[in-house]
C-alpha cells in the first residue's frame, strides 16, 4: 500500500485493494495497539472543524495521540480567522505550514476538495455538507468486515434521509465496488438517493416502508429523518414512524442482522433496541478510531 502524500476526499479515492489493506492494518492495530504507540512521533495533525462534531473530531484526535503524534486545530469557525471571512484556500495554506496532515469538516460540499488543491499536505474529508464522509465509510465497512468476514452476497438496507446523508452516499459509492452487494433504499420520495450516487451502484431497489424490507436485510444502516427536510407537515406525520426502528420491528429481522448508525441518534432507533445483540452502532465508534489510525499512518507513509 502506498498512500503516502495522498488525500482522502471522496470514497472513490481509494481502490478496493487499498481499502482492504487499510482494514488489514486496522485489524493489526486492534490486535496489538502498543506496537503503534510511537509510529507518528514528531508528526502533527490539524483538525479543522467548521461544523460541530463529537465522534469524528475526537476519534481523529485520539487516533493521532495513540500513534504518538500531536494535534492542533479548531472545533468551531468562530474561534478562528474564518469568522473574519478568510477563504478556505488561505486558511489551509497557513495550517499546512504548521501541520503534516489535516482533517476538515465543512458545511459546504466540495470544501475539502478545494483545500486539497491548495494544501500541499494530505487532506482528509471529515464530512462536506450532504456530500461525502469517507472515513465514516471506512468505519462502517471495517465493522461489517469484522462481523461478516466477507462482503459477497450482502444485502444492505439504507433507511431514512438518503438525500442529504453524507454517510449514506459515501457508503454506497464504496460498497458498490464489491461484487454481489445489493442495496435496498428505504426512504420517502422527498429524501431519495441523489442521481450522482445512484450512477455508482448496480443492483438496488427503492422502497417506502422499513417493515417490508427488514426481513431480507443482512445489514441495516439507519439515519435520521429530519422534520425540516419535509415539504409539508402532513407527509412528515404520515411517514415518520415508518423510519423508526424499534424492538417490535426487529422481530421481523434476520437473527444475524447488523444494525449500524453513524450517530448521533435522536429517535430513529428506539432505546429498546440498544441491548439487542444485533445493534452494532456503539461498537462501531471504537472501530472508527482504529481505522483512522491506519489511515493517518498510511497517508503519512508510516506503515509498519
Amino acid at each position, binding site marked *: 500500500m502506498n498512500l503516502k502524500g495522498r488525500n482522502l476526499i471522496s470514497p472513490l479515492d481509494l481502490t478496493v485493494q487499498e481499502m482492504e489493506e487499510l482494514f488489514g492494518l486496522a485489524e493489526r492495530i486492534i490486535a496489538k495497539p502498543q506496537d503503534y504507540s510511537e509510529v507518528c512521533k514528531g508528526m502533527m495533525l490539524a483538525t479543522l472543524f467548521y461544523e460541530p462534531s463529537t465522534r469524528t473530531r475526537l476519534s481523529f484526535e485520539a487516533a493521532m495521540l495513540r500513534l504518538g503524534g500531536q494535534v492542533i486545530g479548531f472545533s468551531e469557525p468562530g474561534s478562528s480567522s474564518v469568522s473574519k471571512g478568510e477563504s*478556505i*484556500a488561505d486558511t489551509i495554506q497557513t495550517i499546512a505550514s504548521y501541520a503534516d496532515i489535516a482533517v476538515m469538516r465543512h458545511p*459546504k*460540499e*466540495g*470544501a475539502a476538495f*478545494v483545500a486539497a488543491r491548495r494544501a500541499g499536505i494530505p487532506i482528509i474529508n471529515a464530512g462536506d455538507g*450532504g*456530500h461525502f464522509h469517507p472515513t465514516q465509510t471506512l468505519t462502517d465497512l471495517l465493522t461489517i468486515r469484522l462481523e461478516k468476514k466477507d462482503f459477497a452476497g450482502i444485502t444492505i438496507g439504507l433507511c431514512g434521509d438518503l438525500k442529504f446523508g453524507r454517510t449514506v452516499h459515501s457508503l454506497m459509492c464504496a460498497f458498490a465496488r464489491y461484487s454481489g452487494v445489493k442495496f435496498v433504499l428505504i426512504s420517502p420520495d422527498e429524501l431519495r438517493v441523489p442521481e*450522482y450516487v445512484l450512477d455508482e451502484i448496480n443492483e438496488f431497489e427503492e422502497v417506502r416502508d422499513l417493515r417490508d424490507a427488514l426481513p431480507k436485510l443482512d445489514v441495516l444502516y439507519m439515519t435520521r429523518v429530519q422534520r425540516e427536510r419535509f415539504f409539508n407537515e402532513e407527509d412528515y406525520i404520515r411517514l415518520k414512524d415508518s423510519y423508526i426502528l424499534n424492538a417490535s420491528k426487529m422481530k421481523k429481522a434476520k437473527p444475524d442482522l447488523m444494525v449500524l448508525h453513524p450517530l448521533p441518534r435522536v429517535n430513529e432507533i428506539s432505546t429498546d433496541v440498544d441491548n439487542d445483540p444485533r445493534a452494532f452502532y456503539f461498537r462501531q465508534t471504537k472501530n472508527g478510531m482504529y481505522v483512522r489510525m491506519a489511515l493517518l499512518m498510511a497517508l503519512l507513509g508510516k506503515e509498519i
Partner: protein
Amino acid sequence: MEINSITNGIVIDHLRAGSGLKVLDYLNIDTELGSVALIMNVTSKKHGKKDIIKLENLESVDINVLGLIDHNATVIHIKNEKIINKTKLSLPEKVTNVIMCKNPRCITSIEAVPNIFRLADSSGKYRCEYCDNFERIHKP
C-alpha cells in the same frame, strides 16, 4: 448581403439563427487582437436561416465551449485564404466558468474558485467537480 472572405482565422458556420450574439459573448474575444464579423439570419440551403461568425487573426480563441451552445455548428480554420481544417463541434469534456453550479450547498457558492464541470455522459449531463451535482445542457 456580401461579406468578404478572411485571409487567416476561423469561420464558425451553421450556427442556429439568432444564437450568434450568445456565442460571441461566450467566446469573450479580445477584439483589440483581430477583427470580428457577426452575420445574422443568412439564408442557408440546409437550415433555412443561420448565423455565421468570422474571426480574422484570432486563431487562438478557445472554441471548445461552443459545443455547449450549438454543437451542430462547423468550425473552419483558414490560412492564406485556404481551408486547412473543418471540424464539427462536440460536447466539451471540461468547461470552466460556463456552467454555474445551482446546488446552494456547493462550495462554489462561497469560495472564489472557478466553476468546473466535466461531461458525465453523451446526453449532455455535466458533473460539478466539487459537489458532484449534475447539470444538463439542453441539446439544440
